[in-house]
C-alpha cells in the first residue's frame, strides 16, 4: 500500500501520492480540516490512516526572547539552537543592556536565559527579575552556568532548568535545549485547534515543515543534481528560509547537525510584503538592480504579475545579501564556496530558471566580485519536503 503525504502551508496544501504532487490554494474562510476534506476528500478515502503523513507550516511558529551574557557565545549559541529547532526568533537581549531595554509588547512563547560556563557564578541578579516582571511569557528556560540555577529557581516561578549550552571549553552543547524547544514547537503546532482536528485523517504524528525539510537535507544530493556545499532557499508567502550546509560557516561553533536554518520573517512576498519592500529600498544595490531588470522603483508599489516576479527576485537577492560578508552583524556564509543553490517554495511556481539565474549572476558580480555562479536547481514540485517525510517513516 502506498503513502499519502500532505504539507499544510500558509498559502497552499501540497498533496503527494505515488502518482505525483498536486497543490491546492487554501480557502481562508474555512478551517484547515474542512478545506482539506472538501478539496481532497476522495483522495483520503483511498488511504488508511496509518499511511497518511502530515506536516504543517501554517501559523508561523514560536516566538522567542533570548537573554544572554554576550553576543559571541550565549546569544549566538542559543540563537543557533533555536533556529535548528524550527523556531522564529523575535528578539535577543544583551544582559549588560537589560536595564535600558524595553520589554516586548506581545506575548512571548518562550524566554531563554543563558550565560557563563559552569565554573562561574553570580552572572544573573535582580536586574533579570525586574525585567522579567515586565515580560509576558508562556515558558521560560535557563541554560546558563549551573551555579546560578538555584537563584533563578528561587525567584522565577516555573522556570525550567536544563544543562548549560556553553561547555567548559566554550563550545556549544545543544542536546537538551534543542530537544526541549523542538518538543515545545511540536506541541504548539499540534496543539493548535486547527491542526488537532487533522488527527482524524492520520494516525501518525504531525510534524512542522521546517523540521521535515531539515531532515531531508542529507538526502538531497541523492535526488537532485546537487553538489555540496549547497543552500536551500525556501521563499514562501509569509517567510523566507535558508537551510545551509555547515561547511559554509567558519565559526568556532561545533554542533552535531550538518545543516542549519535561518528564517527571515520579514521577507515574504505576500504576508510580509511591506517589510520586504522596506528592506529593498534600504539596500545599497537596489537601484542598480532594478535598472538591471529594466524596471523603475514604482514597480514596488504595483499590484501586478510583473511586480510579484520582481519582488521574488528581490527577495532572492536580499536573502543572499543578508548572509553575505556585507552584512557582518548576521550569520555570515562563505558564499564563494557555494556549489549549488536549490530554490523551493512558492517561488518556483512564479519565476523561471532564467529569472533566477539573472539575479544570482547580478549578486555574484556585484556583491562577491565573481563571474562564476553556483549551479541553480529548481525544486518545481516542492519535492524536498517529501524526502524528509519519507525519511521520517523509515525512522519511525
Amino acid at each position: 500500500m502506498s503513502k499519502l503525504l500532505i504539507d499544510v502551508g500558509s498559502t497552499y496544501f501540497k498533496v503527494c501520492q505515488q502518482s505525483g504532487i498536486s497543490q491546492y490554494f487554501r480557502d481562508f474562510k474555512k478551517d484547515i480540516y474542512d478545506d482539506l476534506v472538501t478539496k481532497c476528500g476522495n483522495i483520503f478515502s483511498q488511504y488508511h490512516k496509518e499511511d497518511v503523513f502530515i506536516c504543517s507550516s501554517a501559523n508561523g511558529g514560536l516566538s522567542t526572547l533570548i537573554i544572554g551574557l554576550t553576543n559571541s557565545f550565549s546569544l549566538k549559541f542559543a540563537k543557533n539552537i533555536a533556529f535548528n529547532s524550527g523556531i522564529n526568533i523575535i528578539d535577543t537581549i544583551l544582559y549588560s543592556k537589560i536595564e535600558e531595554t524595553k520589554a516586548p509588547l506581545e506575548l512571548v512563547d518562550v524566554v531563554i536565559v543563558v550565560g557563563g560556563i559552569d565554573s562561574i557564578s553570580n552572572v544573573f541578579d535582580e536586574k533579570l527579575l525586574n525585567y522579567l516582571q515586565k515580560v509576558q511569557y508562556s515558558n521560560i528556560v535557563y541554560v546558563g552556568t549551573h551555579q546560578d540555577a538555584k537563584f533563578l529557581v528561587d525567584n522565577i516561578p516555573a522556570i525550567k532548568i536544563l544543562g548549560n549550552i556553553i561547555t567548559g571549553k566554550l563550545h556549544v552543547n545543544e542536546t537538551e535545549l534543542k530537544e526541549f524547544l523542538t518538543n515545545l514547537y511540536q506541541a504548539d503546532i499540534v496543539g493548535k485547534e486547527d491542526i488537532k482536528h487533522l488527527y482524524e485523517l492520520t494516525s501518525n504524528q504531525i510534524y512542522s515543515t521546517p523540521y521535515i525539510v531539515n531532515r531531508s537535507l542529507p538526502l538531497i544530493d541523492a535526488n537532485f543534481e546537487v553538489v555540496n556545499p549547497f543552500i536551500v532557499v525556501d521563499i514562501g508567502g509569509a517567510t523566507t528560509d535558508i537551510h545551509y550546509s555547515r561547511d559554509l560557516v567558519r565559526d568556532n561553533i561545533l554542533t552535531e547537525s550538518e545543516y542549519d536554518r535561518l528564517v527571515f520573517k520579514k521577507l515574504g512576498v505576500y504576508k510580509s510584503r511591506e517589510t520586504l519592500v522596506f528592506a529593498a529600498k534600504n539596500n545599497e544595490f537596489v537601484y542598480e538592480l532594478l535598472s538591471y531588470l529594466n524596471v523603475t522603483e514604482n514597480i514596488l508599489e504595483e499590484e501586478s504579475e510583473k511586480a510579484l516576479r520582481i519582488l521574488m527576485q528581490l527577495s532572492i537577492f536580499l536573502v543572499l545579501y543578508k548572509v553575505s560578508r556585507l552584512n557582518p552583524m548576521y550569520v555570515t556564509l562563505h558564499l564563494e564556496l557555494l556549489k549549488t543553490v536549490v530554490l523551493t517554495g512558492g517561488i518556483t511556481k512564479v519565476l523561471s530558471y532564467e529569472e533566477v539565474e539573472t539575479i544570482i549572476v547580478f549578486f555574484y558580480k556585484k556583491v562577491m566580485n565573481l563571474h562564476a555562479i553556483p549551479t541553480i536547481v529548481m525544486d518545481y514540485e516542492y519535492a524536498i519536503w517529501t524526502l524528509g517525510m519519507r525519511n521520517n517513516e523509515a525512522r519511525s
Partner: protein
Amino acid sequence: MKKVVTGVVGNDIHVVANRLIDISLQARGFEVFNLGVNTSLEEFIDAVVETDADILLISSLNGEAEGWCRDLQFLRSEYSLRDVVFVIGGNLAVGEAKQSDIVPKYQSYGFDLVFHQVDLNTGLDTLEAYMKERA
C-alpha cells in the same frame, strides 16, 4: 587556577604559535580557552566575560593587529573589565619597527603587557612575574 583566553586576532591564520601558546600555558598551570585563529576583538572580550578569565592573551603574526585592537579601551569599559590583564604579542607591525614606538602605542590602546617579536618563554615568564606582583 588562573584562567586565560587566547587566540590570534583578525584575519590572521598563522596557527603554529597559537598551538605552542596553548601548550605552554597549560604546562605552566593555566586553564586555557583557545579561540584559535581569525578571532575578532569582540569575540575575545566576550570569551573573557563568559569564562570570567583573569588574562586575555592575544597574538598577532601578520602585522595587522593595530587595526583590530583600537577599540579595546571602549570594549573594556563596556563590561567593566578592570581587573583583567591584557597581553599582546607576536609581530605587532608591518615590516621593521622599533620596540620603543610599538610598546607605548599598544599600551595606549589598553594593553598591560606588549611583546613585539619577543620569544614566547621570555614573554610568559614576564607575565607570571607580573601576576605575582599584582597578587
